[in-house]
């Protein structure tokens, strides 16, 4: 009979279940990742999702009877807008229309004056005042200006609704009508952002905008109207809803639910398209997984979905609704009236319902409580790895590589911003006469003594893609404890970043974690074989965040969107340029996350993957021999 000796106050070891986890860690890593994906499959299945409900009872969507009755005005406005032909701008037309109604209307000029970006536009805006209200609150209705048929249709619907709304006395809050100028979608988003920044008295350093001429109250919610995509069958009634904002922000679910309730009450046969996919499973031919996966994809990677995308920055709950082409003018305006009257009923800011959710279809959603275990299961291998390194190390040492990698990442981030703010798309290296120096200049500003001209986004991409971590390993000798600390730091930081990111932008966190977690586990694997380390370093080059993101987008995007560009070498600089542009113009955090966390961690992975080749192997071997010897001594004494 063996006798096990316990200390009077417990054992010197950690809890037994943690020891067991450490022993089984190599089995647990793939199991947990697979469990996460399997759990995602269950949770994201619309059958297992919760039913949507309007949590804020005061909204009472679809319970009012819409009374708009001016279809003639809509048709007249559409005709007048078509006939403009440059005789006057649409902004002037809109303002003249409002002034005839006795409503103040103004124009707001905005511009972006960066060397690489020259944009400008004129928004028009009008306040329909709620005559009997306190005026401390308002709701916003926005629409894009434009001369295409669908833009004119949306414009005429909004204008005729404004004329009707102006004559009603029941409004509890003002209605702000904004007519956004911008030739492309990105321009219009920047223009709308300019309006919102002026409204909230904040400055966007990249965009110059006129101050507003009217005092505005607290914006309770906003709806952007456009026409839904045209259907092959012209009689088919299809509305569309767009929800995703920059940085993964989504509007309060009550807003979307209200739109769906109104649609279902008034137009039973209509279908609501979400993320471009029909939400009616009976009508949908595609897979039931497509809608939730597309929800994750758009949340992660589509910052410029529509005008509503920038509302989240201002704490404004808003979505874009595409009105059905099959709607007649009365139906379209009555839908807008119903939405406005629903928001008119709100007593408080929209806060009762969910802000973090994944839609399965127009009547099913998964809330954060249900889907967050997906990312937790993905993060747990990293935490086990960190715990393992912690138990194996003799003492914690913070190697200099960690601060250096992060400071370097921050420097690259600032440098990239500086490049965008000071250079056009092409830069040049020019020699300075009489001096043995070179000058790094904008290609369009200098044509003399140019030695080499190159694309700016390519330069930025190359600077980011270089595996600086392999050079960082030469910064000094790293002890065994230092290497373990470095490994622990990498996986712990990755786990924390992914965890924090999942609370802001689950789609992005999930997409990154699926690829990053195996990469980190691979990169931080302990090994004593130099050849193994070298082999391990090679796939890390392919696992660079920029490369992974480009391939991911190229592979995944065609699954959702037709006519997408296949992956080629240009995709990577284009992605860098797009991230940087969205960061500077719209305030997207994607580029900051990439430069401040993804790139430093990637470089640290290079460092740690190659560090054993530089003399650490011997130290480790020596240490393991010493450990074996000490264990033998202990065994002998116990015998």
């Amino acid at each position, binding site marked *: 009979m063996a*006798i096990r000796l*316990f200390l009077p106050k417990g054992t010197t070891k950690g809890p037994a279940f943690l020891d067991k986890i450490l022993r089984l860690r190599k089995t647990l890593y793939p199991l947990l990742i697979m469990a996460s994906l399997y759990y995602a499959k269950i949770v994201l299945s619309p059958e297992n999702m919760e039913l949507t409900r309007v949590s804020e009872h005061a909204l009472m969507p679809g319970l009012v009877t819409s009374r708009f009755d001016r279809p003639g005005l809509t048709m007249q406005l559409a005709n007048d807008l078509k006939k403009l032909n440059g005789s006057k701008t649409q902004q002037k037309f809109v303002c003249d229309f409002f002034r005839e109604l*006795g409503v103040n209307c103004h124009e707001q000029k905005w511009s972006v004056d960066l060397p690489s970006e020259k944009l400008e536009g004129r928004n028009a805006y009008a306040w329909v005042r709620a005559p009997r209200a*306190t005026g401390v609150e308002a709701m916003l209705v926005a629409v894009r200006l434009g001369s295409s048929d669908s833009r004119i249709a949306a414009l005429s619907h909004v204008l005729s609704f404004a004329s009707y709304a102006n004559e009603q*006395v029941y409004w509890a809050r003002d209605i702000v009508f904004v007519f956004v100028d911008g030739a492309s979608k990105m321009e219009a988003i920047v223009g709308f952002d300019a309006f919102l920044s002026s409204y909230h008295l904040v400055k966007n350093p990249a965009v110059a905008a006129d101050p507003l001429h009217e005092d505005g109250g607290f914006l309770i919610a906003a709806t952007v109207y456009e026409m839904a995509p045209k259907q092959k069958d012209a009689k088919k009634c299809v509305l569309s809803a767009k929800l995703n904002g920059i940085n993964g922000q989504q509007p309060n679910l009550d807003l979307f639910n209200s739109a769906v309730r109104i649609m279902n009450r008034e137009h039973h046969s209509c279908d609501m398209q979400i993320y471009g996919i029909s939400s009616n499973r009976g009508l949908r031919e595609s897979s039931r997984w497509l809608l939730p996966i597309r929800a994750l994809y758009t949340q992660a990677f589509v910052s410029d979905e529509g005008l509503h995308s920038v509302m989240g920055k201002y704490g404004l709950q808003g979505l874009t609704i595409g009105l059905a082409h099959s709607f007649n003018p009365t139906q379209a305006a009555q839908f807008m009236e119903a939405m406005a009257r629903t928001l008119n009923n709100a007593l408080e800011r929209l806060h009762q319902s969910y802000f973090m959710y994944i839609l399965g279809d127009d009547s099913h959603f998964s809330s954060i409580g249900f889907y967050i275990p997906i990312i937790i299961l993905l993060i747990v291998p990293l935490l086990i790895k960190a715990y393992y390194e912690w138990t194996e190390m003799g003492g914690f040492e913070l190697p200099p590589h960690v601060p250096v990698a992060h400071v370097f990442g921050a420097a690259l981030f600032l440098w990239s911003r500086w490049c965008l703010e000071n250079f056009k798309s092409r830069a040049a290296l020019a020699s300075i006469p009489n001096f043995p120096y070179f000058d790094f200049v904008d290609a369009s500003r200098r044509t003399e003594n140019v030695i080499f001209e190159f694309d700016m986004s390519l330069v930025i991409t190359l600077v980011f893609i270089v595996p600086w971590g392999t050079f960082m390993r030469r910064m000094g000798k790293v002890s065994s404890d230092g290497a373990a600390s470095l490994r622990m730091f990498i996986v712990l930081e990755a786990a924390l970043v992914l965890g924090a990111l999942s609370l802001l932008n689950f789609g992005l966190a999930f997409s990154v974690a699926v690829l990053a977690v195996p990469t980190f586990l691979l990169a931080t694997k302990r090994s004593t074989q130099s050849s193994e380390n070298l082999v391990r370093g090679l796939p890390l080059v392919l696992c660079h965040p920029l490369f992974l993101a480009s391939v991911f987008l190229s592979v995944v995007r065609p699954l959702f969107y037709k006519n997408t560009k296949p992956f080629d070498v240009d995709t990577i600089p284009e992605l860098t340029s797009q991230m940087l542009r969205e960061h500077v113009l719209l305030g997207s955090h994607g580029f900051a996350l990439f430069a401040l966390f993804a790139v430093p961690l990637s470089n640290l992975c290079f460092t740690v993957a190659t560090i054993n080749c530089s003399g650490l192997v011997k130290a480790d071997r020596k240490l393991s021999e010493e450990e074996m010897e000490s264990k033998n001594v202990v065994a002998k004494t116990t015998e």
Partner: protein
Amino acid sequence: MIYLLLVLTFRIASGLETYNERLDIKTLEKGRVHAKFTFLTSKDIIDNDFILFPRVLDQLVEKYNVHRFVLTMQQGRWRREWNEPPQPASPIGAQLLVYFKTKNATEAEKNFSSLVEAANGLFCTSLSSLTVTAVSPELPVLEKKSFELTTRYGIVSKETTCTENLSQLRKLLPCKSSGLSVFLHPSKLYDSLFHSLSVSINSSCEEIKCRRSIEFELSVVFKTPADGWLLSRLFDSQFSEKCSVAESSKVTVSHDPISDKVKPSGKELEKGVYEYDFSVWTKGADLEVETPSFKNSSIVQSAGIRIWSTLGGLSQHSGELRISVKNLGKAGNNVVISQIVPYFVRVHYNSLMVKCRSASSRVREKVFKASKAPKSSLLIQYNLEIDETDTCILHIPLEKSLLRINDYTPDANHGMYIPGAIATFLQIKNDLNGGYAVHSNAVLVALPVPDFSMPFNVICFVATTLAVCFSPIHTFSTLWISPDIPKSVMVKKIYRGCLLMLLALSLYAHFNNSNLHDLRRFISAYLQKLNELK
């Protein structure tokens, strides 16, 4: 006989008490008509007989040592296209301005809180949540009048006025169902675009003789047909009989003398203004105004100032209140801007800033009246000299407070109100008589709101933490040295076997899309088959 005696007594008494009523009607813009009622009752206080003057108001003034009392209630916004707002200027909601005869601030404080409750009972209001501030004698608030007296001023931005307020007011009038008060028809008055009601009580004494006056004013903006209006339809009631105790009962109608037609014509006070004496008005007679070609462009902008407040910033922690003042040049250059800052936002005096476009516009004086009480408000006053057509902006950076859970209103996510600023003119040009003040819009601050289910969460977290911590602590503290007796290997094998079987069964059920109901049905069918075999 008794009736005659009463009337006689009344006549004698009314020599000391007077009552005047007046109604001014004006077209503001196409389809918008403004009606302003004024009921003025005065009394020399030499005895305790109250026939016209409400005794209850006299008691109120007497008990709380009040020199002047102004209460206003307003619903709806006065649009700047409608020129000057009715005076005394009223913010949306309710405001109360009281001058106390006492110079003792503590006594005034005590009197004010009691007076608010008394006013609540008397006028059927709910002013208890007033944002109150003490007003310094250096610069006035709301009106030009300045007394060396203790003054208290408060605003409730959210208070709405309703028929109950009007009913209480009507009860205080000498004629409740005759004279111009027949037009005080609640269903019509409250179905309007703008509604403002004010009560002003003045008490002045010279040696031993005191005189009290009470003025009720009611301003309403109606939505009317574009081509004109009829007096009986405007108020949904017809003039029945004159108020026999009224000294005067006048109605004036302002109109465009070129395009408008007024039937019947009245006494022309000035061009475009007819006056009618309703003490001789025939019962059932009506007044009709036709405005077939009224153009909004014919309105002459004569408002002296435009003032508006905006709250900026996105943070939950801080923001900026911006008060913009544009001098339209009709009322003068010298204006006092007063802003009450409630306790739930904090202001640093050194961060306040005034910026004017014109270099010659300047700050003449500034007064900050801080209060020591934890929940009372700060008063910021700037005496500005603003050039004509110039705009000055007062920047007030704010810090939003995280309040105690009980300090939040039940609808905490609605936000809290910061009252609008008040612009008061000190030097009025000749064309505008009397005091003149304008209120800016109130602003809604979205304060950081705690998770109101926090106590529940705390209990859950603490209980879970205790449970998790207790288990290892208990285990480790109760360990002892013992022989390690190996358990039966067979039992372990059976246990693991059972688990594996369960796992296999679950997988089988999953891949065959079977569920517990199928299993139950299968078992019941099997048992049934066994029974049949018997």
